[in-house]
């Protein structure tokens, strides 16, 4: 068999080489023609060459014009460095103080796979836009080191913290409240400064070493705004049910805080219903709500679960008002028309109503970059990337080491205040302020929103603790 195969191979090669030789001979015979063709082609190429030269000249001129305004790097959504510096009040700062030319590794732990991958994608978009704009504004070259926590897998979270720590990374953007607490020991061990713009500190992450929440506590900070809204708009509402996801030991804190908010607004608790994260069938919960005979429902479910709940709530014929703690467009898609009865109270980024100059720039560049309107999770991770840059600048101004999580946290403790795309005014960017003991926000703009024809419309605004509650006219 081997001999047969070899002889066949030789035959094949022989034929092939013969064919090649024949082709080579033919080519030799037409050398002159080829040469002439080359000359002809050379003349024909002069046209495109001229076009290319003109194009290059035009590009150079255009670049000159752009450089005059400041550069816009790819991924920055068309925002120029000059625009970013102007908005953030960084004009006139020297390159060194901005961290130009420096390479900085920033960990980012998101739900890249699993049911929460919706969040991961949006949060990643925000962070990517943030680091591109930071570089365009003359800041450091920030490299995002992505880790997947597989949608709240505690082991994946703990592993992410360990891997980032071993890599010597000093700062990290986390989500799902430090992946439901599993990252806390790793953050403390490796002294990594973590900012969580996804879930804030929640109730169980308050005061944890190196862990800081960059948004209002969900749902606790939202309760008071929702209840004040009902109090102001519907006097018939007396008894309110709370439907909330199971957070283990934090459940008691959630229900206690809800009771406190009810007492503050002179309302009563009708019932408290715990549901599983990722549930799809809410028949039993809805049946319990019917039995409780509540006048209204506060809903704390996350992600697309809210859509399932609202769909089944409407199909069950229930019409009592529902205010949730969260809103994601994916849930709206799942619920369809049933979402038109949905309201939510949270620190939502309202892309229909950007308030301050930075939020306007963010909105414009995000839409340009991703062809998608930004919402809370994109906005939070965007501004958190900038908060990290702010800390880097502060450490640099002190001549410190930006690769030390401890030094980054020290400058944060000295001044726990950052610029924000939330709040502010037409001329001033907003601010977010943190508590140095609980590591949670003390100043943040929140609002109550109502869905109308598939769009959330602001109906009230309030601050942490329900301060400055105002109905929107």
């Amino acid at each position, binding site marked *: 068999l081997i001999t047969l195969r070899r002889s066949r191979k030789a035959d094949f090669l022989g034929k092939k080489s013969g064919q090649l030789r024949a082709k080579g001979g033919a080519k030799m015979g037409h050398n002159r023609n080829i040469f002439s063709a080359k000359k002809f082609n050379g003349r024909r190429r002069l046209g495109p060459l001229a076009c290319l030269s003109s194009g290059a000249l035009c590009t150079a001129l255009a670049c000159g014009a752009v450089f005059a305004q400041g550069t816009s790097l790819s991924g920055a959504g068309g925002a120029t460095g000059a625009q970013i510096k102007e908005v953030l009040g960084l004009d006139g700062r020297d390159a060194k103080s901005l961290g130009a030319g420096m390479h900085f590794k920033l960990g980012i732990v998101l739900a890249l*796979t*699993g*049911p929460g*991958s*919706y969040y991961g*994608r949006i949060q990643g978009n925000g962070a990517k836009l943030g680091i591109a704009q930071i570089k365009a504004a003359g800041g450091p070259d920030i490299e995002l080191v992505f880790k997947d926590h597989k949608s709240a897998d505690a082991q994946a979270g703990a592993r992410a913290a360990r891997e980032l720590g071993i890599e010597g990374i000093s700062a990290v953007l986390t989500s799902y409240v430090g992946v439901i607490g599993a990252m806390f020991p790793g953050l403390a061990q490796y002294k990594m400064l973590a900012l969580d713009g996804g879930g804030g500190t929640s109730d169980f992450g308050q005061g944890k070493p190196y862990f800081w929440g960059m948004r209002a506590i969900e749902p606790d900070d939202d309760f008071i705004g929702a209840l004040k809204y009902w109090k102001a708009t519907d006097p018939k509402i007396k008894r309110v049910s709370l439907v909330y996801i*199971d957070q283990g030991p934090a459940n008691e804190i959630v229900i206690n805080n809800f009771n406190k908010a009810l007492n503050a607004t002179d309302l009563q608790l009708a019932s408290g*219903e*715990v*549901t*599983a994260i990722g*549930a*799809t*069938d*809410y*028949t*039993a*919960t809805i*049946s*319990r709500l*019917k*039995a409780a005979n509540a006048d209204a429902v506060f809903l704390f479910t996350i992600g*697309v679960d809210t*859509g*399932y709940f609202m*769909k089944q709530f*409407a*199909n*069950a*014929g229930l019409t009592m008002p529902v205010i949730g703690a969260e809103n994601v467009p*994916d849930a709206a*898609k*799942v619920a*369809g028309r049933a979402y038109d009865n949905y309201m939510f109270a949270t620190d939502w980024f309202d892309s229909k109503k950007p308030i301050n100059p930075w939020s306007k720039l963010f909105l414009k560049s995000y839409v340009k970059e991703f062809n998608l309107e930004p919402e809370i999770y994109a906005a939070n991770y965007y501004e958190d990337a900038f908060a990290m840059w702010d800390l880097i600048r502060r450490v640099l101004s002190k001549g410190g080491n930006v690769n030390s999580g401890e030094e980054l946290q020290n400058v944060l403790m000295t001044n726990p205040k950052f610029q924000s795309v939330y709040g502010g005014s037409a001329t001033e960017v907003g601010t977010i302020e943190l508590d140095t003991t609980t590591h949670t926000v003390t100043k943040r703009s929140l609002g109550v929103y109502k869905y109308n024809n598939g769009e959330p419309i602001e109906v009230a605004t309030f601050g942490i603790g329900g301060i400055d509650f105002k109905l929107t006219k």
Partner: protein
Amino acid sequence: VSIEQIEQLTLAGIINGSFYALLGAGFGLVLGVTGRFHYAFALVFTFAAYVASVLETEFHLAVGLAIFAGLLAALVLGVAIEHLVYRPLAHASGALSLLTIFISSLGITIAGINLITLAWTAFSRTIQLIPVQPLHFGGVSLTTLDVLIVVLSWSLTIALTAALRFGDLGRAIRAARGNPYLARVIGLDPDAIYLSVFAISSVLCGVAGILEGARYAVQPNMGIRPVVFAFVVAFLGGTRSAPVVVGLAGLFIGLVESLSGLFVSPQWSSLVVFSVLFIYLVLRPLELRAFRAHALSALPSAES
């Protein structure tokens, strides 16, 4: 606890139970006849829903055509998995095939779900099967889609039972399930029968996937929980029982899951279901032994 609450939860139990009946009948058929632990049932379930949804919402295909394409996709995927993965593995791993097939099935599911996410993103999709209208009877409520789920699930389960009992292919399947050696002796080809079983099971799974997509949403991980329930139902009903018996086990599971909401928080309903399975396996270990013996007996047919 009010009467109205009991009525509502019983109705919800019947709806969910009917859905579990359909899933259990499809899963139990593969488990009982081939002895393969077909975890990739979850992927077939998801894939059918995705194909139907994409064709309906993006390509604006008529809903009937989109469903047909979804079921065809499920059939092709199920048969391909058996033909290209399970059968060669069964040949190669002999007595360990139960484990290797389960692990490969798990791998296919994870890879498939990730590919679906890559192709169609993790965003939820919808299927508009029929206009969904709420129906209220006294204090209880359901939707037109719930009615469709109950009717379709039981129609298919009963049709499958009848086909297995009276049809030629059904008799061949029962023969291969009973004794693959003897089936071969009388001129049947167990390998071809296994492919038919995968085809039937995949179509049933596809129907369940599309119904689930219409009821809730189409998502990459939508098949994981149903496949676990399908396993519980198939085991509880008996891996060698008629589909309608497996269906009744599904109904029982649906009612237990739903009515447990009267006594415990809904988040613990899955725990109640698995407790039922655990108690059953403790009280009736024979079922487990019979399945293991059958799984091993099915091997030579593939090897020959």
